[in-house]
């Protein structure tokens, strides 16, 4: 729980610095879209490199890396990937853009988005795990 809270605070601090200094919302989905499809590539590439490097530092310091599920169907991961990419682009934000930043600026749109993906996520996990038995 301490790590979760500390991680959350660090994410909040990063979002704060990014907004205060660079004037932008630290939303990962929009950073990815910007780097993939626009000409404004340098800052989002650096931001993404930063994320990978920051994460690498944690694991290099002895943080336990996630162990992949050996029996989880790959087609479900592929389907999920497409849905996450398309969905967050369409909604213009994901957990960071709508969740962390949008709620931070008290945006009603972001509140609706966050409640939607949380509730649909809860329902989906229930169906996948307990009706189809995929874990």
């Amino acid at each position, binding site marked *: 729980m301490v790590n979760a809270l500390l991680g*959350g605070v660090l994410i909040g601090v990063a979002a704060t610095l990014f907004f205060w200094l660079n004037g932008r919302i630290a939303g990962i989905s929009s950073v990815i879209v910007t780097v993939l499809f626009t000409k404004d590539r340098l800052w989002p590439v650096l931001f993404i490199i930063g994320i990978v490097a920051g994460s690498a530092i944690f694991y290099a310091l002895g943080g336990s890396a996630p162990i992949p599920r050996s029996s989880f169907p790959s087609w479900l991961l592929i389907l999920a990937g497409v849905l996450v990419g398309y969905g967050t682009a369409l909604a213009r934000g994901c957990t960071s853009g709508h969740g962390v930043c949008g709620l931070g600026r008290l945006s009603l749109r972001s509140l609706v988005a966050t409640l939607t993906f949380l509730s649909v996520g809860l329902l989906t996990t229930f169906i996948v795990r307990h009706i189809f038995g995929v874990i």
Partner: protein
Amino acid sequence: MANIIALVTGLIFGFGLAISGMTHTEIVLGFLDVTGQWNTSLLFVLGGAVSVTVTSFYFIRKLTKPIFVDKFVVTEANEIDRPLVIGSALFGIGWGISGYCPGPAIALLAVPNWELLAFLPSMLFGYALYWYLPGHRTQKVGAAATKSKEAAQPTCG
């Protein structure tokens, strides 16, 4: 300077994501699965992050401009429209199936595994699908937000 800031804030963001445990699908899905042993970590992550941003954004929004660039890039959109709800629902389905959202998927590039190999390219394909299918880039939210070229960029929130 703004580019250095992007790198440094990314670094803090990535370290935060990794230490928070959000790259572990068993923790994320352990939260989304409220039956059985409920894992409340995600509440602490989101709660910790939002309590910081709610406080700091309140003050930042009073500023006329950011420190290192000329203006804030924030959408003025406030409509609850179909793309917002449908997109969030589709994201929720993908998140609920896999346990991955975009940030952790990127952070996981530091310690990639076979799951990421299946998920990440598919996610990028999903973004391409959105970008290249007709209609979406002219959706009302973007057009209403700004008339500049930046309208094509999804400024979140």
